[in-house]
């Protein structure tokens, strides 16, 4: 096991000490990061979304910015503006908060679609174009967006096309009893975060990201992936089948998960582990009842597709 992989394991342990009882979600978030994707967390306030983002940024040694989305937000509030300087008689670009290695886009569904798409386009392109000038975003660049699950008045839920830009959507959920006890007994999380030492450098992270791309994928596994895609496209349970982009996302996430598990090749289990995260927000059930949440559909999908 090489240096960066070792540091990764240490990093995971460090995060797990702060975010108690959420080992699976932490790994999913890391897999998302390693697969160069962005993460959407859909959960209630107070379950630790911000803390997770903070800890991740801190442990991975990433520069961190938080954007609180509001309804009166403008694209320029996110991307930055060119400000005219009288003394030098020129425009100077004032980068917005998006110019950070890790961004927490909090309550992204509170902003208008315009502001949302400004962020999402930046996510997709890894660059920002303002007044004809293109500004590259830092690398690595990782967005964790949070969204309130309940439909409230005055929110703009992300449209399907925008959801597709997030590699994964996860839920943190309530901690279990022992984790809760740990939280209650432990010190204030913020204090701990401040003391955390970075376990990885951005360079390490990029090495790991390169390693992810090299994880072996056998024809048998591709058969499995295709069987999954085909099933979603054929079954009447889903309004639409998964897009090719979803397939690519699934593969990338599976590779990252395999790396996190210390494997050199992707196994069906890796696909299954990331599947709810990757396809949960991309699938929409046709059965019109509240139980048909994305996760449930994803679980049914796993159970419906034979491993070839």
């Amino acid at each position, binding site marked *: 096991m090489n240096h960066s992989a070792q540091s990764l394991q240490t990093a995971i342990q460090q995060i797990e000490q702060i975010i108690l009882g959420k080992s*699976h979600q932490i790994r999913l978030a890391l897999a998302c990061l390693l697969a160069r994707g962005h993460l959407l967390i859909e959960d209630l306030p107070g379950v630790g979304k911000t803390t997770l983002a903070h800890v991740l940024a801190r442990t991975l040694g990433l520069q961190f910015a938080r954007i609180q989305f509001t309804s009166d937000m*403008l694209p320029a509030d996110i991307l930055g503006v060119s400000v005219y300087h009288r003394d030098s008689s020129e425009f100077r670009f004032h980068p917005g908060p998006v110019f950070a290695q890790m961004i927490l886009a909090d309550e992204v569904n509170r902003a208008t679609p315009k502001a949302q798409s400004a962020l999402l386009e930046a996510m997709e392109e890894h660059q920002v174009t303002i007044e004809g000038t293109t500004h590259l975003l830092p690398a690595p660049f990782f967005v964790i967006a949070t969204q309130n699950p309940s439909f409230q008045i005055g929110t703009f839920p992300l449209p399907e096309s925008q959801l597709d830009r997030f590699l994964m959507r996860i839920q943190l959920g309530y901690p279990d009893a022992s984790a809760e006890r740990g939280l209650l007994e432990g010190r204030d999380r913020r204090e701990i975060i401040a003391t955390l030492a970075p376990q990885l450098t951005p360079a390490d992270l990029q090495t790991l990201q390169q390693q992810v791309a090299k994880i072996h994928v056998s024809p048998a596994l591709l058969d499995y992936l295709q069987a999954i895609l085909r099933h979603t496209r054929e079954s009447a349970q889903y309004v639409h089948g998964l897009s090719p982009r979803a397939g690519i996302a699934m593969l990338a996430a599976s590779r990252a998960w395999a790396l996190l598990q210390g494997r050199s090749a992707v196994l069906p289990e890796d696909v299954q582990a990331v599947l*709810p995260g990757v396809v949960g927000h991309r699938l929409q059930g046709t059965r019109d009842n509240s139980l048909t949440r994305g996760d449930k559909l994803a679980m049914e999908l796993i159970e419906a597709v034979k491993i070839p």
Partner: protein
Amino acid sequence: MMSPLRQQFRNWAFRRNPEAGPIVLNQRRIYILPTRQGLFFGFVLALMLLGDINYNLSLGYVLTFLLATTGALSMLYAFRNMAQLQVTAGRAEPVFAGEQASFILHFHNDTDLPRHQLVLHARDGHQTTFDLPARQASAIAFRIPATRRGWLASGQLGLYTEFPLGLFHAWSYLHFEQYCLVYPQPAAASPLPAATALHGTGMHSQEGDEDFAGLRNYQPGDALPRIAWKTLAREQEPQVKKFSANQGSERWLDWSLLPAAGDERKLELLARQVLDASAAQLHYGLRLPEAELPPDSSPAHRDACLKALALHGLDHTPPAVRRQADTSGQHLAARIAAWAGRKLRTPSAGKSQ
């Protein structure tokens, strides 16, 4: 084609409940009987055999046996032409009453054998013929006329083949829980109701964040990103970009405001109005006795409105889903938790190196 008595017998003998999952056509699902033509062929063979015996035609025996064996082989071929096909029910896009509902069935042929001349047919005689190449999945659309709004079930479909020689009829039944949503047939033409004005006028502008609507003078307290820096370079006074949210006009397509008519007629009128409003990209809402859909102009909204019309007074979930809904959902959380837990217990068990 089939006498009522025979039909009744078949209903009794081959009755199956609708199925949800994929169906694999195995020997228990495939029935084979000779066709009328096959019986006739047998008769011809018997005649030939009599001739052979009478005239002691050795080559005649050879020919007769060869034909008989080939005919018998064709039974195996017919069975093989259907066997091991996997069929799953696909989606059925909603249609308007009076149109043809198109149910998609997915046929997976995972074997090396191409299949020929399979015929899918409904009770009413509608049928479609298709081939299935080897190692491929094919989507077969099957059309059933949609006469009434609501959920249209595909019902029991028959699949048969008489390939290769037409001497044997191999068949099976496919009965899926497959439903197509049928919207009410839109009325011929119906004027849209007048826009309901919120502030006295049909169209009005409200300050918002949506669209750039011009510039105004800077007032202390304006946000920095809203200052029009470009104009600042030209003009003396700082200006601020003004944005507006275009609310447009809202129209309510209201059940209660329709002229007195039968329920179905009202639904047809409303369907027409929804389509027209959607085509004109209006901001419209739908008001039914039992539901109200807030104004919107997206295609999804149109579909939701049409669905509400289609299912007015009916149950909103297809029968099959209703049956299983109460049993399946509850253990989900437990299942996910158990499954995620299992993942975590053995995070590094599979290190293969």
